């Protein structure tokens, strides 16, 4: 009956939730389901947020005005991931990048593929590669990844946040 004394036990915390996306994010994701990237603009400082969270955190006001942005942008920063992440189907090494869409004041995280890893650099122009329309849902995964456009790099100083 006596077992070896254990140094630890595993806690059994497990809770179920029904997560909601937020009103602003819901509007954004419903547009993503139509293949559109719709940003929101601050009524005070005109900063453009994509994906939007419903507010301009530097002004503390709601961002009601919406504007559609193109699916092109530039690499604001990146990292090459060499470590496999449990549950992630992508085989390393691969590029995770902060992508600043043209016309946006913030960047978001996505993948860059169709690229030689040695070529990735800040300022590189990229464009979204979408899944087949039949697979679109209310998720940014509608964009499989971004790929280089081959256009001339942008000057990284444009990444400064709007004054």
């Amino acid at each position, binding site marked *: 009956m006596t077992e070896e004394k254990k140094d*630890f036990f595993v806690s*059994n*915390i497990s*809770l179920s939730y*029904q997560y*909601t996306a937020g009103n602003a994010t819901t*509007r954004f994701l419903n547009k993503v389901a139509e293949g559109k990237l719709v940003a929101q603009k601050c009524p005070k400082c005109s900063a453009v947020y994509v994906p939007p969270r419903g507010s301009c955190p530097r002004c503390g006001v709601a961002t009601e005005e919406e504007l559609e942005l193109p699916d092109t942008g530039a690499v604001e920063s990146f990292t090459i991931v060499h470590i496999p992440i449990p549950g992630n189907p992508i085989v390393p090494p691969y590029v995770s990048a902060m992508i600043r869409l043209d016309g946006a004041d913030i960047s978001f995280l996505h993948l860059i593929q169709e690229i030689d890893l040695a070529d990735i650099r800040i300022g590189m122009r990229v464009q979204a590669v979408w899944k087949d329309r039949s697979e679109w849902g*209310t998720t940014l995964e509608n964009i499989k990844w971004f790929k280089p456009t081959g256009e001339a790099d942008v000057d990284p100083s444009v990444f400064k946040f709007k004054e």
Partner: protein
Amino acid sequence: MTKSSDKELLRASFKLEYPYERSPGPVIGKFFDELSNEVLVGTKNSKGEVFVPAAEFDPKDSEHLSEFVEVKNEGVVQSYTWIKKPRAHHLIQESFAFALISMEGTDSAMLHMIANCNENELEIGKRVKVVWNEEKTQTIRDIKYFEIIDD
């Protein structure tokens, strides 16, 4: 994310889990170790008061407790609540009670469950005894539940 019946409202179910490895330390570790041998131990303060489950500190004056004493696996119900229809996470899925139980000769109460009885048999002051879980995990669940001692 899936669309629910609310127009355009997005909801996604998900499960949040924390399978942390917790180290119980010398006092709680000893209590769990003894539980897996089907023995109940408590800790004793300098006034001779006994805490079961074993407390690391006296909750009144923070005295560090390290003296262990073995206690009988029988106790008295200090309070209880009858759960007719168990809910999601409850470990017993037939009617049962949560109870505060003072083990014989102790000065504190232990939170645990009472099963194998009807609601009308249960009252404050009732004597109960430990029913052990066959499979031991060196956790508080090595006590499966308590049951009423027939007079």
